[in-house]
């Protein structure tokens, strides 16, 4: 039966089914676009839809912000991993690092930089649970991975961190729920996920990304989940944050102490250190000459900044061609403070970790940095002794073994020491010294010129072409960016160095220096020419120098930048061309010991004025008609070349539109302007310029003709265009010039890996260095280096339980800084005065003024009362924004001066006890005063007799018992207290204590609050006032009309009838009364009995209730026990993690 095939289906050819199908076919037939389908059915709906679309369009728009981070070679994105302890931060970090680099970290400390894609690098930082670290991380993180324990829920630190982020510019946040495997029941898991997500969305924004990580496998999170997360990270876009777009900053991934060991030894480690920190420049360009602030340390001076080779470079051009990142690039990781790659940079040592067995033979194994270093050390052919023997160091000035080394041997040393940088330098110097000994007198200059480059001096002694690649820029760059004093060949040398090979540059970079160096240089080179071994290019140089000298000076172009910045010539000398020889002669004379003191005779004539005195000679020239005609081309009516005229005509027409044209010209001609310059008379260039102009005009016409709307941009597009144009200009302007002078002009761009040398760093930073605490080097603007009174708008955080008291110390995180200061709270009182407040108001902003380092207006901040981890509750006590910066403050508080009248006339009274001297009264003459009852008056004049008494007038007669008071305003000054939170300097970094409150100090020292007797509260005694009866004299009474007469009645003295009479009852009446009495007695008894019964019942009920209560409390107890159990587990887990047992323990629970 199985093998028999089924009968095929035969569709019906007739009947109802077929009919149905036939009918349906016609309906289906409609193809193509159905216009009706998408047309709005009602006009109202169409209108609504239109509005909605427009509104949605508007939400797309943001305030255009300039992004100062370059698109090519941006710095690595800082990804901070933040969360409470035990939530799995380190596990996530390790998983992510493993995902990107295929390396397992055993110890993850400090920032870890990896290459994540062709155009992106990431720096991972793990943030510990210290509030200081959270603040610092919050200021620099581009992306925050906020980890939340799914089995526990949100913790206070998470909310605190979010509030910190809010006040310092919100970076991107991705939430990550972990420990979800601990929730066993699916329904509970779903519910808790939902609840957490809801809470997270209210904190960040609706729809914020929340990731779920399930269990842990092999000490890592599941690979697929991590991959998903990494994809999210790699496509993340970042909007520039205003504060970071105005400040440069560096997250230090390495720190070294450069202090001489001897100094440390002699000072027992207590001397100020010279420290270098390493990291990528972020934010804006890092400029020399500005100060930096390291949160937790303080303001520091940058002694020098050096550009280093990128330790974790982006994939270069060849790998760019591929779509994906090559596997080799994936292995790049830069984590100097962790033990990755076998090298760990400790604070004063470098540890090389060689795992397992290690042999030199196998080259195919990828060797880490450290292994390579060890192998290099093994490779050294000669011992130190040999090196010393060969070196030309002379121990004593008069030592007999003088350095008569022949040039060939010195060359040998150089060649040998090619791989050793220090040796090479030494060799160079000595080498040049020897040569210059053979040279003529100007050996100083030769020495100076020869110092920087290694390659050049080797090139001199043997003819080999220098094609050696630079090991890394860090080695060849000089330690400090500095101006060589009149080192004219600096640029040239650099060019050689950078290119790695020689070239004969015949541009004007070299033959431009009209300083005295030129001659010296020329002489030097002439002497070089005599040397047989001089290479060809050198000869050429000399010839060129000669040619330069002979060529006319007029056509020679000065290098103004160099003349202005790197020579010591006076401005007049720079401008004067001719007397250069004289100045040269002067300079030569400097060698003489005695010099005639030059009188500064010329100084007095020079007035500090921007108007030059009119030069009669110069003006004489313009009496000549030909001269006048010669400048006709400078006017719009002038006829100098066809294109000039064209321009003139064009400009002539539209007078008010010239600004527009100017802008156009700027926009278009940026690239073309050199070509367009109508200077050379050759026909071709003019034709080209004309063509370009025509082309531009045509383009403009086309644009306007084709779509007149398109050329008109809206405000938003216009602004964005403007920014893009400016950024393009920024990039192109300094493209051509060499790196060193470029850094001088524009500083170190973001994305550069730099080494910052900091002077006078407190030694505690080095001694108590802990890589788990981030070191942020924040650049300061010039204004931020100063101090002043800062007025801020502040609001107490609604989760902070206490009110903030005036003059209580507060820790602020403002700008880069964290500091403690003493604010004075105030409110604007009717726009007349700033009135001091004793406490911050509830649910309201107020002003606060404090002394401290200046931050620009509009900078956000958050405030804390204590940074300690053990302080209970929510620690962010207030948030706010900077409003104003000043050097003085005007905050007042109310003061009431009281006095009492001692003599009262009609409207005049004499007041005493308000002032203590006549002088004080004189100051307050004319001031408004008032009595408690509201009678207003004025201070008139001081009285001679009781000191401080005065005459005052009132609008009405006052009473002797009245208190007179004067309302005045007393100005309050904030205390000049600024105490930076130097948490990084402590060995116990989480327990920084600043100024304490008086109450805290008293409590800690066990002191009692001093009690002023006058300040104690006593019951107020108000003796009843006795008023004398009003007596109207008889005479007056008599004359009064009846209505006004006092109607006084004497009370009746004798008893009335009703009081006097006696009552005798009838027998019937008596009986009735007795009966009533009996009934009442019965009723009373009944009520009493009823009450008794009710009480009994009540007692029974009470008993029952008690029983229930007991049961309830039992339940409560159970509940509390449960909670404590969970809390205990949590704390145990923390303890476990500290012990290092970590996850293994965790999984059992």
């Amino acid at each position, binding site marked *: 039966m199985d093998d028999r095939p089924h009968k095929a289906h035969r569709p019906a050819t007739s009947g109802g089914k077929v009919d149905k199908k036939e009918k349906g076919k016609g309906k289906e037939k409609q193809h193509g676009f159905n216009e009706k389908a998408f047309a709005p059915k009602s006009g109202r709906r169409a209108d609504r839809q239109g509005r909605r679309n427009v509104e949605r369009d508007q939400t797309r728009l943001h305030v255009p912000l300039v992004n100062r981070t370059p698109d090519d070679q941006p710095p690595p994105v800082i990804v901070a991993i933040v969360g409470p302890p035990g939530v799995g931060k380190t596990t996530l970090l390790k998983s992510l690092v493993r995902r990107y680099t295929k390396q397992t970290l055993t110890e993850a400390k400090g920032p870890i930089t990896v290459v994540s894609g062709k155009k992106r690098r990431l720096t991972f930082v793990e943030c510990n649970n210290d509030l200081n670290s959270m603040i610092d991380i919050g200021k620099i993180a581009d992306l925050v991975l906020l980890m939340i324990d799914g089995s526990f829920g949100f913790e206070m630190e998470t909310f605190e961190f979010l509030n910190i982020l809010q006040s310092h510019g919100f970076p991107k946040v991705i939430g990550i729920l972990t420990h979800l495997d601990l929730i066993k029941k699916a329904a509970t898991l779903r519910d808790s996920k939902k609840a957490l997500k809801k809470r997270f969305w209210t904190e960040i924004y609706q729809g914020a990304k929340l990731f779920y990580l399930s269990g842990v496998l092999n000490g890592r999170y599941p690979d697929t989940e991590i991959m998903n997360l990494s994809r999210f990270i790699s496509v993340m876009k970042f909007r520039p944050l205003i504060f970071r777009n105005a400040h440069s900053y560096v997250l230090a991934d390495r720190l070294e102490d450069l202090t001489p060991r001897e100094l440390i030894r002699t000072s027992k480690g207590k001397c100020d250190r010279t420290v270098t920190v390493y990291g990528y420049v972020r934010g804006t*360009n890092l400029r020399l000459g500005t100060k930096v602030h390291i949160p937790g340390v303080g303001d520091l001076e940058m002694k020098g900044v050096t550009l280093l080779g990128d330790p974790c470079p982006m994939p270069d051009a060849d790998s760019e061609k591929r779509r994906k990142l090559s596997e080799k690039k994936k292995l790049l990781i830069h984590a100097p403070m962790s033990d990755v790659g076998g090298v760990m940079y400790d604070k004063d040592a470098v540890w090389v970790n060689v795992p397992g067995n290690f042999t030199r033979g196998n080259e195919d194994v990828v060797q880490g940095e450290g292994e390579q270093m060890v192998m290099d050390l093994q490779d050294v052919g000669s011992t130190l002794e040999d090196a010393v023997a060969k070196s030309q160091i002379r121990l004593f000035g008069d030592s007999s073994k003088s350095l008569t080394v022949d040039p060939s041997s010195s060359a040998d040393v150089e060649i040998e020491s090619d791989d050793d940088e220090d040796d090479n330098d030494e060799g160079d110097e000595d080498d040049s010294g020897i040569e210059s000994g053979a040279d003529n007198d100007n050996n100083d200059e030769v020495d100076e010129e020869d110092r920087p480059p290694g390659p050049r001096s080797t090139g001199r002694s043997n003819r080999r072409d220098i094609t050696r690649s630079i090991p890394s820029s860090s080695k060849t760059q000089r330690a400090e960016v500095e101006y060589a004093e009149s080192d004219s060949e600096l640029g040239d040398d650099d060019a050689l160095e950078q290119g790695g090979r020689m070239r004969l540059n015949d541009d004007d970079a070299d033959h431009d220096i009209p300083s005295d160096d030129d001659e010296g240089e020329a002489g030097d080179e002439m002497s070089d020419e005599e040397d047989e071994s001089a290479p060809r290019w050198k000869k050429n140089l000399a010839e060129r120098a000669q040619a330069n000298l002979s060529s006319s000076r007029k056509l020679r172009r000065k290098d103004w930048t160099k003349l202005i910045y790197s020579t010591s010539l006076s401005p007049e000398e720079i401008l004067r061309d001719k007397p250069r020889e004289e100045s040269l002669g002067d300079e030569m004379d400097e060698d003489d010991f005695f010099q005639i003191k030059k009188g500064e005779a010329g100084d007095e004539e020079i007035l500090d004025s921007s108007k030059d005195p009119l030069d009669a000679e110069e003006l004489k020239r313009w009496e000549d008609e030909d001269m006048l005609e010669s400048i006709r081309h400078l006017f719009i009516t002038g006829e100098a070349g066809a294109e000039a005229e064209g321009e003139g005509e064009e400009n002539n027409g539209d007078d008010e539109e010239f600004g527009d044209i100017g802008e156009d010209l700027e926009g278009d001609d940026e690239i073309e302007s050199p070509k367009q310059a109508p200077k050379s008379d050759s026909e071709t260039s003019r034709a080209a310029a004309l063509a370009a102009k025509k082309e531009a005009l045509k383009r403009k016409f086309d644009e306007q003709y084709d779509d007149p709307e398109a050329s008109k941009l809206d405000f938003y597009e216009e602004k964005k265009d403007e920014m893009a144009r400016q950024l393009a200009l920024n990039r192109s302007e300094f493209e051509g010039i060499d790196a060193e002078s470029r850094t001088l002009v524009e500083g170190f761009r973001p994305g550069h890996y730099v080494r910052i040398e900091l002077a006078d760093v407190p030694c505690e930073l080095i001694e108590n260095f802990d890589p788990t605490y981030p070191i942020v080097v924040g650049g300061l603007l010039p204004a931020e280096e100063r101090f002043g009174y800062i007025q801020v708008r502040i609001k107490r955080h609604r989760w902070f339980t206490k009110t903030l008291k005036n003059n209580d110390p507060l820790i602020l995180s403002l700008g880069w800084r964290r500091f403690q200061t003493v604010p004075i709270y105030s409110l604007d009182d009717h726009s007349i005065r700033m009135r001091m407040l004793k406490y911050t108001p509830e649910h309201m902003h107020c002003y606060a003024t404090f002394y401290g380092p200046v931050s620009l207006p509009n900078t956000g901040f958050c405030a804390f009362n204590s940074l300690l981890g053990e302080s209970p509750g929510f620690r962010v006590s207030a948030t706010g*924004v900077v409003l104003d910066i*000043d050097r003085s403050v005007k905050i007042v508080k109310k003061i009431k001066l009281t006095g009492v009248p001692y003599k009262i006339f009609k409207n005049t009274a004499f007041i005493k006890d308000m002032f203590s001297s006549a002088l004080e009264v004189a100051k307050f003459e004319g001031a408004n005063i008032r009595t408690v009852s509201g009678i207003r008056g004025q201070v008139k004049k001081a009285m001679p007799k009781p000191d401080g008494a005065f005459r005052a007038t009132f609008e009405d007669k006052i009473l002797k018992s009245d208190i007179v008071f004067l309302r005045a305003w007393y100005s309050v000054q904030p205390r000049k207290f600024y105490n930076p939170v130097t948490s990084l300097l402590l060995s116990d970094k989480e327990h920084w204590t600043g100024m304490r409150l008086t109450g805290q100090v008293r409590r800690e020292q066990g002191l009692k609050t001093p009690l002023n007797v006058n300040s104690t509260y006593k019951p107020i005694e108000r003796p009843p006032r006795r008023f004398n009866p009003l007596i109207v004299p008889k005479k007056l009474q008599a004359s009064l009309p009846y209505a006004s007469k006092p109607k006084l009645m004497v009370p009746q003295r004798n008893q009335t009838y009703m009081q006097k009479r006696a009552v005798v009852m009838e027998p019937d009446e008596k009986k009735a009364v007795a009966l009533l009495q009996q009934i009442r007695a019965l009723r009373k008894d009944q009520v009493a009995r009823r009450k008794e019964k009710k009480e009994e019942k009540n007692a029974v009920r009470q008993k029952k209730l008690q029983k229930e209560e007991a049961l309830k409390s039992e339940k409560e107890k159970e509940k509390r026990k449960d909670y404590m159990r969970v809390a205990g587990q949590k704390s145990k887990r923390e303890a476990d993690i500290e012990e290092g047992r970590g996850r293994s323990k965790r999984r059992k629970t």
Partner: protein
Amino acid sequence: MVHVGSLVQFSGHQHLRQRLVLSILSGKHVRIDKIRSEDKNPGLRDFEISLLRLLEKVTNGTIIEISVTGTAILLKPGIISGGTVTHECPLSRAIGYYLEPIIMLAPFSKRPLQLTLKGITTDENDLSVDLLRTVTLPYLQPFGISDGLELRIKKRGAPPAGGGEVQFLCPIIKQVKTLNFVEPGKIKRIRGIAHAVRVNPQFSNRMIEASRSVLNRYIPDIYLYSDVYKGDESGKSPGYALSLLAESSTAAIHCAEAVSKAGVAPEDIGLEATRALIAEVNKGGCVDRKHQILVLLMMVLGSEDVGRCRMGEPTPRTIQFLRDVKNFFGTSFKVVAADPSDLECSHLLYSCYGTGYVNANRTLA
């Protein structure tokens, strides 16, 4: 608690104004010593003292210490407060001497400045108030300082007795715009003001006639105003002067002026001013020689972008200024030839990376 700001040191009395301005703007303390220490009359002059007093008036919290001999000063700058200020200038220098540094500072003050200066309005050494009004203030326009920027000449005062009065109104700004001014353009109009106080009013017309005799050949758009002040408004001394300015199609302005001298005919003064203007026009560039410093300073204070400006060769003052800027702000300029191909052209292209100076004194809300 004393916070020692970074101190910059100079010696000599030259370039005092620009150093004071840079110090106040950058907030760095400045110490200048050896002020005319070799002179027979050592120390600060009265006008310099007066300038220091004026700076103290427009700032809040500035501390100025002058040594006993007057040969050294220490300036600890406060914030620029602005507001309504009146100042009586000594007669040794004209108002221009005091107004120039104030123009550099005023846009960065806390409140809009309303400064009344009394003294000499026009003299030989300093920029006259006419030029300040017609040339200096328009130079601030591309930097975004224009609305409410005004210089009112209430009274004119010629040397030696003075008696003039001007009112300078300046708005405040948040940040200076970046300048990109590389097209000098061609001169499209010439304006001038000839004034005569306490002399024959015909003098100004005579100057104008003389000037027109030279200028008429170039362009038709020439207006030379005759500005005669009478009575109380004309100051205490007789004098007359002609100030000329030539504006290009891209709003570059060049200016010159000549002031009356004893025994010289007004025609000669007119011709002198005209020739000076022609010489200035011939030098070319986008910025006048007299205003190089102002423009360069505003470029330094611009946002963190590249600003460019094409000018002629720097004056000695400009060179010193560039060096001083480097001391105070750490900013150095790239100065290259504007036309590398053309050897005859002496124009230079000054470009720098702005410091991103934000007016921190400005009050919010």
